[in-house]
C-alpha cells in the first residue's frame, strides 16, 4: 500500500540542498513532516529497507537510500534479503551461538 507522506517526503528530498541537510540532521528534516507515522519515522532513522519497501514506489525507495548515503552494495543486500525463500542470518542460526 502506497504511503503518500513517505513518498512525498522522499520526493521532496530531491530539492536542491535537501540531501546535505538530511545527512547532517535527519530528525530536523523529518520533523517537517508530522504526517509521517511513528513506525515510518523509526524505519527512516534505522535504515530499515524491508519496512519501507512495500510502502513506496521502488524508484523512490532507491533514491531515498542513495540520498541517505547507503552504498549500492548494502542496499542491494537488504533488498535481496527480502526475496521469498531468503533466510536471514538470525533465522539460519548464524548468530547468538557463540
Amino acid at each position, binding site marked *: 500500500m502506497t504511503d503518500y507522506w513517505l513518498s512525498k517526503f522522499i520526493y521532496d528530498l530531491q530539492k536542491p540542498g535537501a540531501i546535505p541537510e538530511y545527512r547532517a540532521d535527519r530528525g530536523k528534516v523529518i520533523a517537517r513532516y508530522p504526517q509521517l507515522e511513528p513506525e515510518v519515522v523509526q524505519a527512516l532513522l534505522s535504515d530499515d529497507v524491508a519496512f519501507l519497501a512495500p510502502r513506496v514506489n*521502488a*524508484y523512490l525507495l532507491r533514491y531515498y537510500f542513495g540520498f541517505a548515503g547507503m552504498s549500492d552494495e548494502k542496499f542491494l543486500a537488504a*533488498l535481496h534479503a527480502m*526475496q521469498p525463500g531468503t533466510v536471514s542470518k538470525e533465522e539460519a542460526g548464524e548468530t547468538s551461538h557463540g
Partner: protein
Amino acid sequence: MAEFVGAFAASHAPLIARDWDKLPAASRDIITADFRELGKRLTAAKPDAMVILSPDHWTNFFLDNLPSVCIGVGDSHDGPPEPFMKDFPRSIAGHAALGRHIAATALNDDFEPSISHRMALDHGFCIPLQKMELARLPRIVPIVVNDLEPPMPSIKRCFAWGKLLAKAIASYPEKLRVAVFATGGLSHSIGEPTMGAIDEAFDRDCIKAFQKGDEGPITALLDARMEAAGNGTHEVRNWVIAHAAAGSRGFDLIDYRNMPEVYVGCGWASWSA
C-alpha cells in the same frame, strides 16, 4: 507536409553517467560504440525535429498529478536536474508547433494527453542524447509515458499512440523531417527485491518479436512477461510506441548487451522510414 524519417531506441541507466569512470573499460567501449552507431543513423536521417518518448523518474510528476501521457509543447525545456548530468545543456530547444499539433491530433482522435509548456528532461531523455554525441540536436517534442507507477497505459494503447504519432507527423502542415526516439528498457529491476536481475531470455524474445513486427505477438509477449521481468522493463512501452510509429516494420537491432554493471539489459535499435 512533414515526413517521418525513422525511429530509434536506446536504453538508459543512471550509472552510465553517474559511474562512467568506474565502469569496466570494455563496458564503456561497448556503450560508446553502440550509442555512436545510433547517433550516426539518426544523423543520416537528417531530422529537423525529434519526438522523444521517455518515462519521468519523479522529476516533473508525483502522486499528486501523474499523467499517463504528457506532451511537451514548449519552445524550450530544462536540462536534467540530476547532479550526475550537470554537464548536459541546461536548456533544450523544443518544437512547440509540432508538440501542439500532436496534442491537437490526439484530442481530435479521442486521446486525452496532458500537456506541459516546460518540462525538466531527466536522465531518461538526456543520457541517450548525450551519449550519441550529436553535432546538432534537433528541436524536440518530449513525451512522457508513465512507465513508473501503476496504472500504466496498456500495450494495446501504446500501439495506438504510435499510430497516432505517425498520423500527426504525416498531417503536420509544414515541411519538416521528424524522427521518433524511444528511451528505456529492456529488462531491469530497480529498488525491488530482485534489483539487479536482468531477464535476458525475455529481452531476446522481445527483440525477435520486434524483428517480426506483428502487433499481436508483441502485445501477447509483453502482457504475459513484462511485469515479471522487473519494474524498469515497463519502459519497453516506449519502444512499442516507436515501433508502431514506424508502421510496425523495419526494426533493426544495433546491439543487445546484458549489462549487470549498469543493472540493465541494454538495447540499441532503429526502424527505417
